[in-house]
């Protein structure tokens, strides 16, 4: 049991390091729209989105399916960790401007 949990920790650390080894995916928010608004990631592998908010005001990267709520202030950036995802589509939005700020992560 102890060995198993130790293995789990080591495996998790290895996974964590591998996720940092990858360059973050750059996404920009301008005029309350995401570019790109479709983000492709590899399934079953954690990834990182670097969100640059080019607007004057803050917005919140919000996705219940990704389990992420992250406020990014105006003219600022935010690192968003995306957990390892099963293949599928995961919509997200800028909660404060949901009419235009819509996007989707596709894991494949």
């Amino acid at each position, binding site marked *: 049991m102890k060995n198993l949990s130790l293995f789990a920790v080591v495996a998790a*650390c290895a996974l964590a390091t591998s996720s940092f080894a990858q360059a973050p995916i750059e996404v920009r928010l301008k005029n309350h729209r995401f570019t790109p608004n479709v983000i492709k990631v590899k399934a079953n592998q954690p990834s990182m989105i670097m969100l640059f908010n080019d607007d004057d*005001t803050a917005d919140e990267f919000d996705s*219940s399916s990704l389990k992420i709520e992250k406020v990014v202030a105006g003219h*600022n950036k935010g690192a968003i*960790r995306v957990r390892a995802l099963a293949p599928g589509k995961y919509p997200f939005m800028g909660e*404060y*401007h949901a009419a235009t700020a819509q996007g989707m992560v596709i894991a494949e």
Partner: protein
Amino acid sequence: MISALIIVFREVIEAGLIVGIVLAATAGVPHRSRAVTFGVGAGVLGACVVAAFAGELAGLFQGSGQELFNATILLLAVSMLTWHNVWMASHGREMARELKAAGHKVKTGERTLLALSVVVGVAVLREGSEVVLFLYGIAAQGGTSASGMVVGGGLGLLAGAAVSALMYFGLLTIPAGKLFQVTSGLITLLAAGMAAQAVIFLQNGGWLEYFTATVWDTSWLIKEDSITGRLLHTLVGYSQAPNGAQLIAYAATILLIVILMRMVPQGGQTRPQSAPKAHNA
């Protein structure tokens, strides 16, 4: 205007339900409205500060300052809710007895008012900072939408407060003897849900990397984004696709609170001052 109404309503409900439960849990305790008002006031003030320094906060801890902050205040609320429940389990019977004796001043329960005002403060702070950032964003765009924002925001606030009041008065219709059990149960689930939410923030901040696989998915039944989903999320910590760590935190919190509530001596024997009173009775 509609977007302001919806977002304010949503956030006010999420904080308001917690305030409603706290108010019902402290029914009959003197000075409780002062404690709750203090909690709400501190929460609003804190929300403005958090909103104003959102950029600076996010920049801390290699970009994970926001996640750490959220996890910390949630866990603070969890410990305060736990303390309240354990204290009430110890003093609940004494309190019920004193409540029945007409004119008898209820002293117990005042002690955990501070804990509950912290909980109220945390709830208002979390939801409030989102409202402030959102409304500020609309205001900054200026001009035509500003008046609509005030109307929408005001209506959202009223509607949210009305639903919260409904929750409170609904709970008060429960007979006094049962009310304690119901509010204890609600507070336990509230704490468990907050603990699970704190785990998500720790995961998103990169501090908790194991048991992240989804255990089950009920998004086909209730979407977390729907009104029902949001209410259940606030009240009992509903998650449409919980992962292992979330479930462990949820179950562990319930287990911890139940065990602590069973373990404490009943009747408030922890305070020597209350002993003479027992002789009088």
